[in-house]
């Protein structure tokens, strides 16, 4: 496994639901610190790594991935030792039942599974329906409430999906939990790394935000702290290349370049910035795809509303099976997203930022 894959493995294997992003933050900090002049966190926990430009008033470019992954929170332990839970982030019942999870307790992590009834005892009508989340529970193999408590489990504990980072037979295809959005964190790290020896008049911020999956919250506070001139939300997007998905549902295909998001439910991308980015991609012959996500949003949705407004664009990676335990993306899309953002930043300066913002 090469160094890049090692970093991706560390990032995706780290566990961190919204509000408890310590593990992935530590991993991102480890990888980005060598390429930044300063690394700090804001008061909610978002990681902000700054690479200072030559002058104090150089444009500030924010490249933000989010640290949190969707998961669950323990709300109660019943008398038989089963855990009731709250979904934290957007979960769909169809992908939850019988899935392995990790419960993060004060005494360490313990394994569990989201319990389900066998079909043998279900009425015919019940077999046709998905089970309501309210009826689900987590089985940690405890005999009763007292034993569960003795394992260290308490209300408020985080619960995360289980899926080890896996390089598939075609080694361009990478499967993991939490691609949403550790791939964005990896892009932020790589952008700072590859700009290290480049000459450009910008201050670049590689940011790992918290609590994106519950409302783009860390992006709001970290963007307030930075007050960027330009913002890039880097995240996963929808891959429309699986059976049953048509072009009416999703346009993109894995391996055909990063997605340029025209609009989503949180933002209409800034036309000047969008045109600048796609023009750069055309010039440098970097592949890209246009897409839109009417049922989702990214950190750009918060960033672009900061202070007087920030030209922002979401650049995403077409990913299969997001918001499940096991998602798949294509390594080339990651590489091309990094290259595109690097080339864009190399072309930006104060005059260019002013022009694309106001013309």
């Amino acid at each position, binding site marked *: 496994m090469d160094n890049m894959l090692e970093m991706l493995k560390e990032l995706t294997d780290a566990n961190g639901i919204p509000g408890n992003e310590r593990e992935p933050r530590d991993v991102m900090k480890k990888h980005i610190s060598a390429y930044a002049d300063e690394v700090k966190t804001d008061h909610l926990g978002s990681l902000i790594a700054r690479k200072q430009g030559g002058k104090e008033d150089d444009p500030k470019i924010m490249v933000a991935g989010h640290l949190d992954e969707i998961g669950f929170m323990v709300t109660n332990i019943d008398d038989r030792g089963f855990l009731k839970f709250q979904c934290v982030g957007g979960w769909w019942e169809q992908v939850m039942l019988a899935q392995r999870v990790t419960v993060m307790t004060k005494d360490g992590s313990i394994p569990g599974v989201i319990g389900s009834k066998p079909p043998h005892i279900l009425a015919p009508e019940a077999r046709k329906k998905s089970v309501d989340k309210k009826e689900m529970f987590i089985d940690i193999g405890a005999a009763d409430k007292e034993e569960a408590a003795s394992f260290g489990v308490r209300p408020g504990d985080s619960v995360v999906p289980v899926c080890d980072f896996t390089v598939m037979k075609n080694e361009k295809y990478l499967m993991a939990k939490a691609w*949403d959005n550790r791939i964005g964190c990896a892009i932020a790290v790589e952008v700072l790394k590859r700009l290290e020896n480049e000459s450009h008049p910008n201050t670049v911020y590689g940011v790992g935000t918290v609590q994106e999956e519950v409302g783009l919250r860390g992006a709001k506070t970290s963007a307030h702290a930075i007050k960027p001139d330009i913002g890039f939300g880097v995240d*996963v997007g929808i891959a429309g290349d699986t059976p049953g998905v048509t*072009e*009416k549902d999703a346009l993109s295909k894995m391996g055909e370049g990063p997605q340029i998001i025209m609009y989503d439910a949180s933002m209409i991308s800034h036309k000047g910035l969008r045109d600048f980015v796609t023009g750069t991609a055309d010039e440098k012959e970097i592949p890209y795809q246009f897409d839109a996500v009417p049922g989702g949003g990214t950190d750009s949705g918060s960033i672009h509303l900061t202070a007087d407004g920030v030209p922002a664009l979401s650049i995403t990676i077409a990913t299969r099976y997001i918001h499940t335990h096991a998602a798949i993306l294509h390594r080339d899309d990651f590489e091309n997203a990094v290259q595109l953002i690097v080339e864009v930043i190399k072309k930006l300066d104060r005059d260019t930022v002013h022009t694309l913002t106001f013309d």
Partner: protein
Amino acid sequence: MLTTKRMPKTMTVSSEGINSFSEVIEIAAENVYTGVETDT
């Protein structure tokens, strides 16, 4: 990527491009930032 509470009534993208843009804006104003589901 944040999931919003509900999708627009019709899909908004075709191979020709955007075909129900106003609806997206309307929906976004209603329901962004609904990641925590309080009914569980």
